[in-house]
């Protein structure tokens, strides 16, 4: 018996699809439905592993945290993966941590198919996340102006290398 209220299921995966995922849509969904790994988005560049560990431990025992790094600088660039031992603990994060604050920023949690080496690096042209690459707003926790804006400010080039029709990615869906 359904209890009459229709509430969006917080544990449903977001519409995001990793374009580098090595598999079919079905394989993606299968991985998501058994995973105990979370992708965490909208972190400040200064948020430490310790802070992440502290918050997410409220939901259970953490196996591993992998910080997302700038591809060139190898410094944190605002995302990470949190692996739990138990899937139920990961799901608890989506219920209770997703949309709350860490380091004064609303963070986003999302079921992730699983960490593979290489996924810890930002995929933006400048080395960080794609969502920062073309960000037009100032975000002091994420390097201030985005790289393309910085480039414009430096060179006076109005075009700023903005790619038209670029496919929107999960990072783009993050909210501040």
């Amino acid at each position, binding site marked *: *018996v359904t209890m009459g209220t229709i509430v969006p299921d917080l544990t449903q995966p977001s519409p995001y699809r990793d374009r580098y995922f090595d598999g079919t849509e079905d394989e993606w969904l299968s991985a998501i439905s058994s995973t105990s790994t979370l992708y965490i988005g909208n972190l400040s560049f200064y948020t430490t592993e310790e802070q992440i560990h502290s918050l997410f431990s409220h939901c259970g025992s953490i196996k591993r945290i992998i910080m997302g790094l700038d591809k060139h600088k190898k410094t944190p660039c605002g995302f990470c993966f949190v692996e739990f031992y138990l899937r139920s603990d990961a799901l608890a994060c989506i219920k209770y941590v997703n949309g709350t604050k860490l380091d*004064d920023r609303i963070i986003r949690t999302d079921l992730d198919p699983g960490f593979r080496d290489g996924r810890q690096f930002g995929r933006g042209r400048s080395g960080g996340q794609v969502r920062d690459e073309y960000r037009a707003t100032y975000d002091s926790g994420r390097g201030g102006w985005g790289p393309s804006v910085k480039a414009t400010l430096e060179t006076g080039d109005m075009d700023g290398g903005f790619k038209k029709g670029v496919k929107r990615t999960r990072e783009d869906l993050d909210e501040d």
Partner: protein
Amino acid sequence: LIHFIKRALMMSHHRRKRGYDDDEGGGGYRTKKRRTNEHMEIEDRLESLILRVGEKSTSSLESNLEGLASVLEADLSTYKSKILKILVECAMKLPDKCTIYTTLIGLLNTKNYNFGGECVELLVKSTKDALKSFRWSDARFLLRFMSDLVNCHVVSAGSLLQLLDNFVDAALEEGVPQVRRDWFAYTVLSALPWVGRELYEKKESELDRMLGSLEGYIKRRKKIHHNALRVFKSDHPHPQEEYLDCLWQQIKRLRSDMWIEKHIIRPYLAFDSTLSEALQHNLPSLVPPPHHPSTLYPLPTVIFRMFDYTDCPEGPILPGQHSIERWLIEEQLRHILMSNHLERKECAAQLLSYPLKNKIPLEYIIVEVMFGEIFRLPNPLCLEIAYGSILIELCKLQPSTMPQVLAQATELLYERLDGMNKTCFDRLVNWFSYHLSNFQFRWSWDDWEDALTQDPEEPKAKFIREVLLKCLRLSYHQRVVEIVPETFAVFLPDKPSPNFKYAANGQFAGSVEVRASEHLIAAIKRKCTSEEVLALLKQELDPPMAEEDMEDNVCNPVKIEVFTQTLLFLGQKSFSHSFAAIAKFYSVLKSLGNTEEAQICILRSVVDLWKSHQQMLVVLIDKLLKTQIVECAAVANWVFSKEMVPEFSKCYIWEIVHLTIRKMNKHVAKLQK
């Protein structure tokens, strides 16, 4: 809505008839499939109709119930078993709509006596099943539902009393666990707000006799669990009553008010003349299944109280602690919480849209119920963070009132820290620091200046210190410095940094140990192997021994300390760095920690290095246990050693103790399999 569905149902009836005519020849399968699909569609619509009755509507509840009753009456022949099933599910899972569904059944009973009878039978059977499968809440709500059916003239008062008497007998049964007896007593009492008046009017002496037996039991029983479950040691300013005692007092008060209560909405009153013409049914006999040693009963609780009417501002009065209204409201709020805790936004919305919210200081009752759940002993029913995140949602939904009530609650709890159970103290620390981290750590710390003059071991001083330590974990040291006034510097946590004994330019510079450490660092940077490390340590730090003394199980504490501290000093950048270091030289640590004494030495080395970084300590000890470099016994013996006594009253020590015990339990469980 009802009219639309009625038309749709009539249309599909016609469609079905036509289907028969059209498919005289072949296509029988398709017809059957279409019929089955239609059948299912109608069942789904019926389910939806039944579930939604009572929700906001342009028509009155009474007219919706009348409409629904006639719709269902038409479908009783085809969909009876489905309708019965839905109604029983509603009885079990929607206790706050109890009177709505009993009224519906009452109306159906007037139209179709047999249906009423089957309903009653299924309810009794479902209660038996719930008891057999230990679904205690389902059983309790079913008993309440069946009791309310007396008000709708579906069930006779006499047969209900017989059933209640059977439950009371179960409460009086000797030789069974008290927790079972308490549950039966509680379940009977929790039905009386609905049916007490009717039983008083029809069967006063039987009711009195039953209550007399219950009162005797409730007063006679042992309550050694009471003190173990209290949040506050003292009953001042608010008594912390045992749950059954409290409900008994509330029922007594109701009884002295002639069983008249004005809180429950009773739609059947509007249909009294129709319903009282119906024939009643007798409940089939229900004897509770006997106790079985493996049965687990719900734990007893203590009713957490922190507010009385003087705490609430001008406006609707907070119902007294022994008023039945207080119990009814809390029942309903707790049910909303338990049914919606997985959807925090929906939960907060439902809590705040409590139907009678204009008659009560709702925010206060919600906050009291929420803290009661957070502080529940031995354990809360949900993760602590569930309650924390729901409280945040409540603040978001009602920003003009909820944050203030929460602030008032925090102040109040701060004032009563002295008599608070220590586990609850820790939970308050965890909740408050988590809550602050979502609101930029803004707080009126100055209001707590009184703690400045206290001894650090006093509860208030300790509370502030532990809160700031937890705030540190969720932010960083400079942030914590900035959020408190300068006068509060004494409460600030240390800046986490490694206290490396063998630093090259430290107090032991030039010593053999420091040299060994430097060589070790160089070797590790050179990517040496574990064997090379062990050889280096042996060569530089083991005392020269005679052949006979060459035993490996003599613990060399200096060697252990130099290696452990050097390794973890190299891994200081983050948890992951330290974990990687431990993993890389796992065999060295394993080899060094070959006795309990040696393992305690490892622990001491870790603690000395990271005493200013409690979180790192907890995480490292957890890792050392997980990799079995140290055993649970070693941690236990170390924690309870003399040198750790000054640390004893600090939260992080108990974090370590609890995680160690949990690991031990896991080992034991594995071995038992």
